């Protein structure tokens, strides 16, 4: 049953004072899907992520994860459902080493022995084993992004939200990020917010476009890229 809907939002709204960051988002994600979420600055992409993972409590509508209504759950409760997020502004434990960062994520739901193995595996996979003993605060931006992805993976989530994972990466790092994402997608569902259209083209099948807190269009990548509406909202920017 690979087409079962695992994440669904209905009429999702998030209001900050007078600002409607989300104004009724209907969204569905099926099992093992890799979805790209795009849209101009301020469209509400990050806000949508924050609502899904419990960092914000939506002011309207519903979120359902694997059949369970989750609005009002706290971040740690959502995380325990098996959801991992890489936030737009990297959120890592700066004063701790790479290994400790990953270990804390891995140990939450595992014994220490399993966690140790998991951490070693993930560091291998991301080619960051040589950074194991480095403090996060000493790492360059690209490496921090990679470590944060490692933290997310160490929690072994089945749904992963990545908010601008390619931002600030070098070309090599982007290639590695794409390999890793493709690899992750063999087991987990993914939603990826990204501004870099080359990146989106390389990984996307289905793309959702947000505009002013709503879904503008939800279609396969070629249709979206060809859409006049999408071109219009990006105000002539090349899409």
């Amino acid at each position, binding site marked *: 049953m690979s087409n079962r809907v695992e994440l669904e939002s209905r009429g999702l709204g998030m209001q900050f004072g007078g600002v409607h960051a989300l104004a009724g988002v209907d969204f569905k994600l099926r099992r093992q899907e890799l979805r790209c979420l795009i849209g101009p600055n301020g469209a509400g992409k990050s806000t949508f992520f924050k609502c899904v993972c419990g960092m914000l409590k939506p002011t309207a509508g519903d979120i359902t994860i694997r059949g369970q209504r989750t609005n009002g759950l706290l971040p740690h409760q959502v995380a325990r459902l098996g959801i991992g997020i890489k936030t737009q502004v990297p959120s890592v*434990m*700066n004063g701790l080493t790479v290994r*400790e960062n990953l270990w804390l994520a891995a*140990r939450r739901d595992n014994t*220490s022995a399993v966690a140790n193995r998991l951490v070693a595996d993930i560091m291998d996979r991301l080619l960051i084993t040589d950074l194991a003993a480095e403090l996060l605060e000493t790492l360059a931006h690209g490496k921090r992004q990679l470590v944060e992805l490692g*933290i997310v993976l160490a929690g072994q989530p089945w749904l992963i939200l990545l908010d601008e994972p390619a931002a600030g990466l070098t070309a090599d790092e982007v290639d590695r990020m794409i390999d890793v994402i493709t690899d992750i997608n063999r087991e987990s569902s993914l939603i990826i917010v990204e501004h870099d259209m080359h990146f989106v083209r390389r990984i996307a099948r289905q793309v959702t476009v947000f505009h002013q807190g709503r879904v503008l269009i939800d279609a396969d990548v070629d249709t979206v890229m060809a859409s006049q509406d999408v071109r219009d909202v990006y105000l002539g920017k090349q899409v």
Partner: protein
Amino acid sequence: MFARDVLPALIIGVPAMFVLPMLFDAYTLTVLTAYALLALSLGFIWGFAGILCFGQAAFFGLGAYSFAIAALNMGSAWGPFFIAILVPAVFAAVFGALLFYGRLSDVYLAVVTLVMTLILFKFMNSSAGEIYKLGDARLGGYNGIPGFETLTIPWDPGEYLYDESLFYFAFGLLVLVYILLRVLLKMPFGRALVGIRENEQRAELMGYDIRLMKTIAFSIGAAIAGLAGCLFANWAEIVTPALFSLGQSAEIIIWVIVGGAGTLLGPVVGAAILGYTKFLLGQQSLIDNTFVLGVILILAVLLLPQGIFPSLVRLWHWLLARLPSAAPLRRRSGRSRRDKDV
């Protein structure tokens, strides 16, 4: 874990326990030990769980008062010993749960704990009347509670712990608590606490219930402060509202800052050095006590921002690196894991 955490503490702690009374007078050492334990309690919750509590004196005072009140009512001291640990721990668990489940921000937490201390201070000061009586114990207002049973040797109830024997007991407890905290910080719970200190949001996104974990850490800190209060009560043989005073609360924070927040040994060293300085200053009336402590705090913050103890550790490594004969002992350079876990 044993070789890295327990053994060094024993190797330094046990000889120190016997050497110190030869150098200083046991009576002074005992109160310094109680202070060190109190500093350790704040050093733990602040330095490792990131909870800045301005009211650690409240738990110190609660421990001391619980001991005195229970000792008067029970007529013995060993039951009260455990009550003195339990009462502050439970109080802190309830109080902490209100704060942490209410998602109070750090600054408010500091303010609220400060207010809690002030309230206890005011209450104890105004409890002189007949109605302020718990069983056989009168709270006694600003005069405090004197005349309670103190600790005896467990197998010889006639033999009181005082002077040197009380020091050995207090110091043994200090070493024990230090070791227990070191071990705790190596365990998943302790490591996750440090993670929360580093980045609360990420800890939550990893699935850690930070409200629960902070409440537990807060309660552990209060239990240790209560133990320190109990030792203090046994040393002073009287408890007074001054235990809850603002000055006492401020002093604990100064001990931790000067000694080195983010380490366990730092606060112990800070409390011992500053406590002794205060004792020496108390014997003269030329300069104001608080003034000197204030100057020390300012100098420490300006000159040794990491605190005395971490600076000593760094000096030690610096010396080692420059001693040719000690070259094999040199630490791997470059990989500067913080000395946070000392």
